[in-house]
Every structure is written in structure tokens, then in C-alpha cells.
């Protein structure tokens, strides 16, 4: 039992089960537990989940990325401007959007590593720079800040394919989880991520290339954010500079609820995946109750508060002697 309490993901699992049961019981007649209801919350969780995984790895390495939101919007605008305004085909634009996402990550990483400034502020600045640049450039080139995207069938299939009500983004999410689990718990790079966030000096002393670890992770979050931008753009057939602004805080919120320590060095991908599912359940469950969706924010806020408290407790338990 105490061993279970020490696992970083325990809190998220308990919260998920309780919340799920709550909605399952109170909205049973409205179909929350049905196939469509389940697919509904998974669709919602999936897009956030794709960014949440690399954000979790980055936070375990001790850094934040608040620029993801604007990268999502910028990626969708790259598709819009490229395909509609310039008449190019979509696939090269998709590659360009992904490269741009990684470039934003690289810039974040380099600035954080070189200046030693808190990534919280650096990436917050990037967030405004990128969204401002996206809007400014879009208006300059197309006179609008949102525009339609000319989508090819193949792109539609890969990024916005549907099976009944289920979006293909769920598969992308599962892929992100699988990669995250593999990297963090099985690879040498995963060991370096934990060490970088756990004790930077010690990691450096042991020969871990901490700067490279951070930069690679910033690039991963940029890549994932661009991927989500592409998925949203293709799904809605349009790009918008403000897509994804919700993720700026939603991603770190689910990461913390998932048991990652705000100070870094501790956490699991499994916990973050469960917390993302929890986010999906709350956001869609509210609809089934018929209550105002205003309550979602309150719910999330309360959960975040509880999670931070639980995490510091789990950390203490983890460091207590014996097993």
C-alpha cells in the first residue's frame, strides 16, 4: 500500500476512476459510458495528449514550454497560407510546419541553455512572439489571420481520418504515449532526462550532456505542437493563429495532475496519459450532466490544487526509508 502511494501516477489514477465513476453513475442514461461517449472524451484528450507527452518529458528535465499554444496556431497557418494563398500542395507544407515547430523549440532551447534564464519566462515570451508574428505575417500576406486549407485526400486520411466517431488523433496520441514510455523508462536518454531535472550539477558531473538533453526536448515539444496544429488544421479545413492557445496551460496542468513534480526529476508518462484522459472525461462529462460548462474550469482548478498537494506528499513518501 505504501509502495503504491509512492508511485507518482497513483493520484491521477484514483482521480480518474472517481471522476469516471461519478459521470458514469450520474449521466448513465445520457450515454456517457456508450461507445460514442467514450470516443467523445478520447477525441478531446488525444489532441492535448500529443503535446502533453513531450511537455511531461521536458518538465521532468526541469523546464517549461509555454510556447506550444502559439506553435499550434502557427503550424495551421503555414498550411493555410501555403495551400490557399500560394497554391502549393499540402505535404511539403506539412513538412515545413513540422520543421518550423522544431525550429521554435531549438530557439527556446538555445536561449534557455545559453542565458540560464527561467524557461517559464523565455517560452512565455516566445509564445507571444510567435502568435504575434503569425498574425502579423498572415495579415500581411493574406489580409486575414485565419484562412481555409486545401486538403488532399491522403493528408485527410493521415491527420483527420475517422472511424465512426473516433478521430485518428487517438492513434497519434497512443503513438506519442508509446514513444514517451519507451524513451523515459527504457532508454539511456530517459535516464539523462531524470538526471537533468533531478540534480543538474550531478548530472553534468557524471558526463550527461544536459544542454543537449534540454534542447532536444524543447524541439520535441515544438514538433508535437506543430503536429497538433496540422491535425486541427486538416480536421477543420482551416488555419487560425489562435488555435491551441488553450494548451498553453492545459498541457502543464495535465502533466502536474499526472504526477510530474513541478521542480522536475520525477514523474511518469503513464501518469500523464491518465491525467490527460481525466481532462477529456471532465470536459465532455460536464456536457452529459447538462450543467453549464463553466464548471469545467472549477473542476480542473480544484484537481490541479489537489494534485500539487498530493505530489509533494508522494515525493516525501518516496524518499522515506525502506520499502
Amino acid at each position, binding site marked *: 500500500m505504501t509502495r503504491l502511494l509512492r508511485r507518482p501516477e497513483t493520484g491521477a489514477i484514483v482521480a480518474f476512476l472517481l471522476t469516471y465513476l461519478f459521470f458514469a453513475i450520474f449521466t448513465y442514461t445520457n450515454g456517457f459510458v456508450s461507445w460514442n461517449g467514450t470516443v467523445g472524451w478520447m477525441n478531446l484528450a488525444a489532441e492535448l495528449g500529443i503535446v502533453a507527452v513531450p511537455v511531461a518529458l521536458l518538465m521532468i528535465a526541469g523546464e517549461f514550454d509555454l510556447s506550444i499554444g502559439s506553435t499550434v496556431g502557427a503550424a495551421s497557418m503555414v498550411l493555410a497560407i501555403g495551400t490557399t494563398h500560394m497554391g502549393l500542395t499540402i505535404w511539403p507544407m506539412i513538412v515545413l510546419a513540422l520543421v518550423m515547430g522544431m525550429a521554435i523549440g531549438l530557439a527556446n532551447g538555445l536561449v534557455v541553455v545559453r542565458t540560464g534564464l527561467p524557461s517559464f519566462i523565455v517560452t512565455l515570451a516566445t509564445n507571444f512572439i510567435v502568435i504575434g508574428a503569425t498574425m502579423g505575417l498572415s495579415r500581411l500576406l493574406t489580409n486575414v489571420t485565419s484562412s481555409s486549407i486545401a486538403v488532399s485526400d491522403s493528408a485527410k486520411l493521415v491527420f483527420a481520418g475517422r472511424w465512426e466517431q473516433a478521430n485518428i488523433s487517438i492513434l497519434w496520441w497512443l503513438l506519442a504515449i508509446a514513444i514517451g514510455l519507451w524513451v523515459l523508462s527504457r532508454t539511456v536518454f*530517459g535516464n539523462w532526462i531524470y538526471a537533468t531535472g533531478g540534480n543538474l550539477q*550531478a548530472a553534468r558531473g557524471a*558526463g550527461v550532456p544536459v544542454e543537449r538533453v534540454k534542447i532536444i526536448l524543447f524541439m520535441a515539444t515544438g514538433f508535437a505542437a506543430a503536429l497538433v496544429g496540422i491535425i486541427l488544421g486538416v480536421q477543420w479545413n482551416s488555419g487560425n493563429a489562435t488555435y491551441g492557445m488553450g494548451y498553453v496551460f492545459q498541457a502543464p496542468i495535465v502533466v502536474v495532475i499526472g504526477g510530474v513534480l513541478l521542480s522536475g526529476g520525477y514523474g511518469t508518462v503513464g501518469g500523464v496519459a491518465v491525467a490527460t484522459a481525466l481532462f477529456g472525461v471532465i470536459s465532455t462529462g460536464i456536457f452529459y450532466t447538462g450543467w453549464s460548462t463553466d464548471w469545467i474550469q472549477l473542476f480542473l482548478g480544484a484537481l490541479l490544487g489537489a494534485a500539487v498537494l498530493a505530489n509533494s506528499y508522494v515525493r516525501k513518501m518516496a524518499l522515506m526509508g525502506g520499502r
Partner: protein
Amino acid sequence: MSQSPILELKNVTKRFGNTHALSDVSIALTPGRIHCLLGDNGAGKSTLIKVMSGYHHATDGQVVFDGEQLTFASPRHARQLGIATVHQDVGTIPLMTIGRNFFLGAEPKKGFGPFSQLDKAKANGIALEQMQRFGITRVKDAEQLVGTMSGGERQVLAIGRAMYFGARVLILDEPTSALGVKESAIVLKMMKQVREDGIAVVFITHNARHAMAVGDDFSVLIHGKVAAQFERGEVSRDELLNLMAGGEDMAQLEVDLEAVE
């Protein structure tokens, strides 16, 4: 002293601008001996070990390793030659397992290409074996977080790691200063074991009792100079204490203290 020194500093001076951190320091480290480095804060101990481990270059004087004069290109270069430094606090990561800590930066791998992964079973097995070799039998599971271990056990882990990766000169920076009596005993016992393995140990400490318990050679630094250098048994504990406090100052201090009372 039949063995020849493995690492020797000859008339080393280190200046930072106009400040003499070290003046004309000569010190020889011999395999299988523990060399205690004593001195007050600011006496130049840290600078000295940084010269030994490649972080600083000597302004003047020579560094001789294995009989050859050389200049360490970097701390990494010194490490590769087998000069390992273990600091009192940094070195282990509390929220990581023993196995992961032990192999940090030199992880064993299995599998190929993109599917190569951390060989946890091997890492855990070796880490546990090394801990037990140095008398830590309480720890039975290498999946345990390092933060759950005592300060002494963590120190043993850090030293054991340096040993496993082929240290020939082991520099221990205040390894016992944050530890209780029992915990210190574990570390001191380990140092004796390391000496048996033919490692040259540098033991930096404020604690004369700990130094007397294990030391073979002693160097006392005062204001960046070697104030005294002697072998085990040549100096009593009181004399040592006086030297560490800056020579005759200690007697004067006692007189002053009595005057206050």
C-alpha cells in the same frame, strides 16, 4: 614507501589575478596510501583539488602523472586518466534509483540501433554488488530511490561508482563532514578498503580524529602554502589540531578565551 607516486604536484603556484591561491605547493600521492589534506576554510584546499582534477591549470610548477609531466586538457581528461573526485553533496540524485544513479553517464545498453535500451538488470545487479562489497548490506533492492538511503550510504554509492569506473586517484572532498558518527565510520571503513585496492586517496577533512583514524600522509595548508607535511605517527593529535587551526594561533586563542571568562 617503496611505491612511486602516481600523481605529483611539484612547486605548484596558482594565481587568480593578484591573489595567490596556492604558493609553491608540492604534494605526492602514492598508490595504496591515504593522503589527508587539512586546513581551514580558504586555505586553498579546493583550489588544490581543482588543479589535481583538471579544473584549473597551475600558473607555475609541474603536474606529474605516472612519472610523466603533463597538463590536463580538461576535467574529462583527468577523469579518463583515472582521477575521480567525489564531492560531499553533489554526485547522487535522490529521486532516481540506485541502479540508475550508479551508471549515470555510462549506462550499460542492450539491443541495437533505435531499439537499444538501458540494461536495467545489469545496472541494478552491479550497483548492488558494489554496494555490498563495501559493507552496505541493508540495501537489498537497486530499484530503491537513492533519497531513501542515509548520507553515509550515498557517499559509499558515489565512491563505489568512482572505483567501479576505474579510479586510480580518488579525491574525497569532505566525505564525512555532514555525517553522524556511525555514518562516518562506514565511509572511513570504505576508505581503508579502497586503500587495500591500491588506490591513491586524497582525503579532505576538517576532522582531525577522522584524519588520524585513516591517514598515512598529511599535508596542512595555511594561506595557500604547505605549512606542514608528515607521515602517520610523526605528529600527535594535539599538534595536528594546532596546525589545522593555523599553528600557534590556537594557543593564543585559548589564552584569549580564558581572558573572556
